[in-house]
């Protein structure tokens, strides 16, 4: 086997680590702006694809596989990972797609198809309409279930191509925007309409199937989101009883078995206030937050995917142990509408401590472009108890240094230290319903900034001492601060 990874960033780096551990030759692909990205160096070989959007270009990716002699492709998450057409095109070119079959992908990975499959198996789904290609159909469906509703991309995930709509007046705008986003992110503009359940928790079950049987490896609670993008995930969930947990595991493995699912996948559920649960969708791919489950079970999910693709058996699963938390470090300003930030990483220092894992695709000097996802890294901590994992995460984030871009570092710390997080009261709307204040800058930092800027004007002017009294950097009152 020789594996091409059709992805970039942290997930490509993470997959290359497992390939090296398994002594499987690897191939990276990269676009022009990613030519110097770390994921390219982590592979044995690499092939350039050209334009920034080329990670979505099926013929180009297949051509790269042929040119490099790769006979298997791992799609990572996002990009082509849930594209059944791509999985089919791989099969046609005699390339193993490391993921479920195109048939299982359509039956499960597609939001529309999966709701039908779940309904047939008697698993509850959120009320709504799965066929709303036109605005008229969406309007009818929305009127039936009642506002507020969600408009969602049928072929995607991660909150892209998704809009909450509170009234009929907003529908037309939201419908168009969701369609454009869905087309740009997944090359698929189909939409569906769903009732908005509130307040809700988002709990998902990690599954592994080999085409004959399927097992549930554990759940992850991913309620803390902003703009439908997850921020902090953990396992076990603080919001479900043992009884609900077993019901979710049972529903998830039945769905996977019924569709002869052969790979890793995630079954997402919405949990209502009374622990009523609704099947949401299946992510028929590796999930961003998969390390949470790896921490509890000791299973390498990428290795499991590769072994299943080679016709191997499912790994032995012992019961999960302890508690794991993942925090996503984003290049964005949480105190200003989560606006993404771009630029060069000027200084980067990750902490090293027991039971901390850092998955990242950047190094010092990397440029964060506006073309791709703003996630810079994932930090995952493990502890015997939730409190241990939480404190370790606070310690890890406090010891992280990343300069050159505005990040959500201090926001993550505020969330981890909050009463609602400490007590496990996490709902999908929690983050956005609160006002988050930019933390005050420590006094010593302002003083250090004045000094650093003075020093800089000295360096550039070639003079030092009292002569810099004319320096434009003099008055600290004139400085504007970000982050």
């Amino acid at each position: 086997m020789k594996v091409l990874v059709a992805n970039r960033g942290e997930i490509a780096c993470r997959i290359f680590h497992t390939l090296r551990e398994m002594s499987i030759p690897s191939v990276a692909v990269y676009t022009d702006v990613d030519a110097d990205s770390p994921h390219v160096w982590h592979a044995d070989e690499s092939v350039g694809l050209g334009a920034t959007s080329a990670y979505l270009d099926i013929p180009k990716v297949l051509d790269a596989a042929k040119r490099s002699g790769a006979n298997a492709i791992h799609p990572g998450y996002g990009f082509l990972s849930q594209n059944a057409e791509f999985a089919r095109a791989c099969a046609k070119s005699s390339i193993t797609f490391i993921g479920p079959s195109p048939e299982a992908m359509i039956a499960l990975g597609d939001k529309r198809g999966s709701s039908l499959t779940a309904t047939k198996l008697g698993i509850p789904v959120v009320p709504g309409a799965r066929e709303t290609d036109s605005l008229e159909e969406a309007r009818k469906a929305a009127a039936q279930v009642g506002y507020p509703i969600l408009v969602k991309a049928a072929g995607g995930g991660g909150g892209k191509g998704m809009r909450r709509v509170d009234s009929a007046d907003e529908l037309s705008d939201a419908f168009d925007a969701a369609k454009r986003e869905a087309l740009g992110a997944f090359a698929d503009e189909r939409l569906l309409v769903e009732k908005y359940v509130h307040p809700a928790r988002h709990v998902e079950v990690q599954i592994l199937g080999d085409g004959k049987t399927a097992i549930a490896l554990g759940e992850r609670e991913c309620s803390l989101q902003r703009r439908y993008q997850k921020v902090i995930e953990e396992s076990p969930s603080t919001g479900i009883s043992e009884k609900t947990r077993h019901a979710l595991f049972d529903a998830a493995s039945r769905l996977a078995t019924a569709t002869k699912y052969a790979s890793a996948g995630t079954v997402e559920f919405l949990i209502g206030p009374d622990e009523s649960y609704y099947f949401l969708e299946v992510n028929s791919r590796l999930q961003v937050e998969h390390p949470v489950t790896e921490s509890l079970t000791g299973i390498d999910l990428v290795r499991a995917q590769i072994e299943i693709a080679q016709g191997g058996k499912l790994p032995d699963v012992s019961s999960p142990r302890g508690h794991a938390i993942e925090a996503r470090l984003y290049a964005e300003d949480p105190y200003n509408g989560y606006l993404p930030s771009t630029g060069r990483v000027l200084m980067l220092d990750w902490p090293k401590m027991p039971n901390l894992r850092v998955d990242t695709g950047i190094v010092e000097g990397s440029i964060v472009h506006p073309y791709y996802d703003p996630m810079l890294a994932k930090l995952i901590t493990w502890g015997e108890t939730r409190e241990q994992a939480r404190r370790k995460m606070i310690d890890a984030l406090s010891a992280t240094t990343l300069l050159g871009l505005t990040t959500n570092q201090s926001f993550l710390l505020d969330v981890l230290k909050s009463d609602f997080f400490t007590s496990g009261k996490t709902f999908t709307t929690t983050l956005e319903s609160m006002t988050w204040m930019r933390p005050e800058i420590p006094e010593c930092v302002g003083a250090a900034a004045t000094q650093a800027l003075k020093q800089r004007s000295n360096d550039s002017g070639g003079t030092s001492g009292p002569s810099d009294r004319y320096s434009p950097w003099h008055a600290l009152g004139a400085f504007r601060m970000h982050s």
Partner: protein
Amino acid sequence: MSWITITENGQRRRLAIARDQRGVWIGWPGGSAFFEKANRLAEGGHKHRDVRAPMTGKVIKLLVKQADLVAEGDVLVILEAMKMEYRLTAPHAGTVEETHCQEGELVDLGKVLIKLIE
């Protein structure tokens, strides 16, 4: 790019420092901030107001043209970055004096996209 150690209330602390052309970044345990010279991104007076790109991104829709009357909160421009859309709205009611961007254009952080007069 360097570390400095400072003493505050008898406590030794380490700060991270990195400079770029526009100013200096300082990192402390759990956070960081950028210190930039003022008036680089100066705001206009009350009568004129510039609507600037809050991030580097692509203009996917320009919804106004010169001489259009707009109300406070009207969407002027839709920007896309990292596959998410952002709507730039009018900070106050007024008339569009000039537009400085086109649909499809990639704009840098801080670029003036629309000039408004009250």
